[in-house]
């Protein structure tokens, strides 16, 4: 467990939870990222806040990296795709977009917001996608 980082995991997780709580308490919206970008396409009527949220999210990721460049590794190493071959990346992206649209949620929407609301639907989604992802990693051997 050489890479285990419980403190930053808890702090970062609490920040994600706080972000979700603020969006819920003030705007009555679920901070599910697949839902936020999935409804950017027409005929969506509430595009502006979604774009504002996503742009702010990208900017904050970068600013936090500038402040704490060595969190992810030595010498400010930036995260990379693990297997960046075009076909693999394209299939993975397609499945993620398709699956989250059909099941109406992802790790944030079902995983954080849904479980915090005790949604049975979300609990089932989380169990199914975690098990599938764990099996996929073990079959593909991508971490080797």
């Amino acid at each position, binding site marked *: 467990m*050489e890479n285990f980082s419980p403190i930053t995991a808890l702090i970062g997780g609490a920040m994600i939870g706080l972000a979700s709580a603020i969006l819920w308490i003030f705007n009555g919206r679920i901070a599910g990222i697949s839902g936020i970008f999935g409804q950017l396409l027409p005929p969506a009527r509430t595009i502006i806040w979604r774009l504002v949220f996503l742009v702010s999210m990208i900017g904050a990721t970068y600013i936090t990296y500038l402040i704490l460049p060595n969190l992810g590794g030595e010498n400010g190493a930036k995260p990379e795709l693990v297997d960046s071959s075009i076909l693999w990346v394209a299939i993975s992206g397609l499945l993620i977009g398709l699956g989250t649209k059909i099941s109406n949620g992802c790790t944030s929407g079902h*995983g954080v917001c849904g479980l915090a609301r005790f949604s049975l639907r979300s609990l089932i989604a989380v169990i199914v996608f975690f098990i*599938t992802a764990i099996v996929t990693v073990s079959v593909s051997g991508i971490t080797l």
Partner: protein
Amino acid sequence: MNESVKASYLIVAVISGALFGSGLYVSQMVDPLKVLKFLDFGAIPSGNWDPSLAFVIVAAILVMFIGVKITKKNNEPILDDEFHLPDSKKIDHSLIVGSVIFGLGWGMSGICPGPAISLIAFMPENLIIFLLAMFAGSFLGSYVLKLMTPIEISNNGEKFTL
């Protein structure tokens, strides 16, 4: 005026988005390898498994749970007329099939939608292909969903499902 374009509403979106993006970086969930090391349960016997993601999600759920508790007494959010919850409450085929498809894609790359967007900050090689595919998948999904959703016909108050 539409609630969702008011300045206060957008300021909340900025603050929430910023906390979310910063949290993804601090927790290192923006790093696909870190996520894959959690999903790699095969590494448990050798002691190389990284349980960090479980800590991230549990912390996030606990804080969000308090947020949900706070709003239990109110019938509406502070800046809008209603809470926007998904229409469907059913455990149906689309929930299970969609979750399996998402799990497959997530296990292939270690990237779920939040980190996918946050990674734009670093623009790693071929992320643009991933994002275009993800948007295409989401677009395609809305049509697949229509095909999968049973059509309900109401006849004299009795509901039939096709």
